[in-house]
Every structure is written in structure tokens, then in C-alpha cells.
């Protein structure tokens, strides 16, 4: 399979969030601000790409019976790096993201890609697959984050775009809106790209 093919498949055609319904937890939790979504997305891309690479390197030496444990440990080590990095350089965002950085470990996308792709393919291809899946995930986060921040705070990346006349929709900051927006996004994509009937 060509690299471009792998990338497009994991980023869009088989996108983890809208197609496979994986990694919903963090997609809903961190999207109240776009900045948080972006940092979270970058963290996921980093851990996905490198854990895919490492797991693929180890795939011929990992006994099948303990492979889940090995995969989890590899993923956990990269997530710890992300967490330490954020704590050191972006303490404010690290505080806002709270436990959700650590929860990248149990994010089903990482285990899913490790199991479905990295444990059967070459290291470099697995890395491309990881970057693709991570970008697809980041894209969804940014779309949800854009809607929630625009209507909830009248701003984008913390910069006010809607004037003083704008009344913030407080529901957009609260939990329910995340569920509604994700549902509508999935609906829209199903109708538009997978030819489901309205």
C-alpha cells in the first residue's frame, strides 16, 4: 500500500471518530476551547505516531499473549512524555486539560491503531498511519471546538471575533452541547459522504 493511501485512509476514509466511534471521551471533554483542542490533538498525534512506530518495531519480538500489555506500556511512556512536556512549558493548558492528557492512554484510538495496523505493518508505515489517524482526530476536535468556542465565548483561539452585541450561549460551554454537536457532525458526514438517507 502506498504511503499516501495509508494516510488518507486512516485520516478521512476510516476516521477514528466519525467512522469507528473511538476516542469520544476526550473529543467531547476538551473541546470547549479551541486552544485546548489543538494541544490535545497534537499530543494525540505525537503519541499515536511514535507508539505506532515503536510497537511496529517490536512486533516480531512480542509474544502474542502479552502484546496488549506491551502496547499499553509503550503508549503510556509516550503519554507520560506529553504530560511532562505540557506541565513544564504550558502549565495553564495542562491544568485545564487535567486528567484528559493521562486519559490518552485509555483512548481507544491508540489501542485500535496499535492492534489493527502497527502490529502487522512496517515501522515507517505505522508512523504515517498514526499521524493520519491523529490528524483526523484533531480535525474533529477543532471543528467541535470552533463551534463551541464561537457560540460559547464569542471568540476563536481566545481572540474575540464577535462584538459586544453577542450574548454567550452558556449551554455551549456545558457538557450537553458537546453531545449534540458530535451527533450532528456524525449525521452530516454520514449523509454527505456515506450516502445515508436523511
Amino acid at each position: 500500500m502506498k504511503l499516501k493511501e495509508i494516510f488518507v485512509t486512516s485520516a478521512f476514509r476510516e476516521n477514528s471518530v466519525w467512522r469507528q466511534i473511538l476516542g469520544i471521551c476526550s473529543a467531547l471533554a476538551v473541546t470547549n476551547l479551541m486552544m485546548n483542542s489543538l494541544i490535545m490533538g497534537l499530543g494525540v498525534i505525537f503519541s499515536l505516531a511514535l507508539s505506532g512506530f515503536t510497537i511496529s518495531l517490536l512486533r516480531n519480538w512480542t509474544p502474542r499473549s502479552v502484546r496488549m500489555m506491551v502496547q499499553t506500556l509503550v503508549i503510556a511512556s509516550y503519554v507520560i512524555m506529553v504530560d511532562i512536556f505540557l506541565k513544564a512549558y504550558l502549565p495553564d493548558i495542562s491544568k485545564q486539560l487535567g486528567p484528559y492528557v493521562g486519559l490518552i492512554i485509555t483512548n481507544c484510538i491508540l489501542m485500535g491503531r496499535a492492534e489493527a495496523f502497527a502490529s502487522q505493518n512496517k515501522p515507517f508505515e505505522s508512523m504515517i498511519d498514526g499521524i493520519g489517524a491523529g490528524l483526523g482526530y484533531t480535525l474533529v476536535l477543532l471543528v467541535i471546538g470552533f463551534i463551541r468556542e464561537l457560540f460559547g465565548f464569542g471568540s476563536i483561539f481566545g481572540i474575540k471575533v464577535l462584538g459586544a452585541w453577542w450574548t454567550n450561549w452558556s449551554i455551549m460551554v456545558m457538557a450537553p452541547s458537546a453531545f449534540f454537536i458530535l451527533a450532528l457532525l456524525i449525521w452530516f458526514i454520514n449523509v454527505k459522504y456515506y450516502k445515508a438517507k436523511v
Partner: protein
Amino acid sequence: MDISAFVLFWAAIFTSNILLTNFLGMCSYLSVSREVESSFGLGIAVMFVLTVTAALNWLVYNYVLVPFNIVYLQFIVFIIVIAAFVQFLELVIERYVPALYYTLGIFLPLITVNCAIFGVSLFMVIRDYSFLQSIAFGAGSGLGWLLAILMLAAIRRKLKEKLVPTGLQGVGISLIITGIMALAFVGFSGIVQIQ
């Protein structure tokens, strides 16, 4: 934190429900909620494992990680504790209560990757709970999760005979129902604050 464990227990169920306000444990929540019976089984298993692992991880964190100054390893250690406990539980149930094993056993491997379990342990560290508070928070969160998945399963059973747009079937409609449930739970939020 100076909230009593009792208050924390109720707060974890209603005002800061682990699923409806913190979005944890969504994967198994969406995939298992097709049947009421299996939802109940998984919910009970989650509740039990949550309560025990919150206690275990509190002990490990405060008596192993902090004294030896290896707090940065907390993610790996918590995951291992959870996985080991679930494995152990599976063996015990299989050996002594085979009847329970056939109803609950299939859900146990699912629990290791349920982010609610891991999330509660992380919240416990971040919010600096005491031992008793951790247990109360774990039990309350588990009960809250059970409540949420049971409600969704019950609604989805009714939904089977209804016409839903094809693009929205399955996950889409479940998310919308969950959103409405979350909206209802926002109504509790004035009672107590635990953030």
C-alpha cells in the same frame, strides 16, 4: 478538599456524573447499551471495580509513589494496578462463583480499557482526595455510570420500533439522547460543587 465523603458520593452521582459531565467511559457506554440486561451487568462490574481500584490506587499513590518520589510514573502504575485487579477478579469469580462468571465475566476484560476507571484515579490525585473521599467518589461515580447506561439502554429499547433517519441511527441518536440526559442532569448542578 474538605467535603465530607457522604456529600462527595451524591455529588459524583448527580452533579458531576462521570459520564454525563466528564464524558468518561463513552466507548463501552455506546456499544453495550443495546441490551438492558448486559448494561446492568457491565454497570455493576464497573461500579465494583471503580470502588476497589480507587482505594487501591490511593494506597499505592500515597504509600509507594509519593515516598519514593516517582509520581511521574503514576499513569503506568495505575494502569497496571487496574489490569492486575481485573485479572485477579476474573480468576476469583471463575473459581468460586461460576454462575456470576457467565453473566459478568465477559465484561471484565472490557473494563480494563474503560476510561472511567482510570479517569477516577486521576481525578482523585488531581483533586487531592483523602482515602475515604476516594472510596466515596469511586462508588458514586460507578453508580452514576450504571444509572446513565441503564437509562440509555431503556430508551434505546423503545427506540427500536421508531423511525430514525438512517444517518443518525446507532451512535448518532444515542449521542443526542445522552445530550438530553446531560441537560437534565445540569439541573442538579446547583446543589453542590466539587470542582
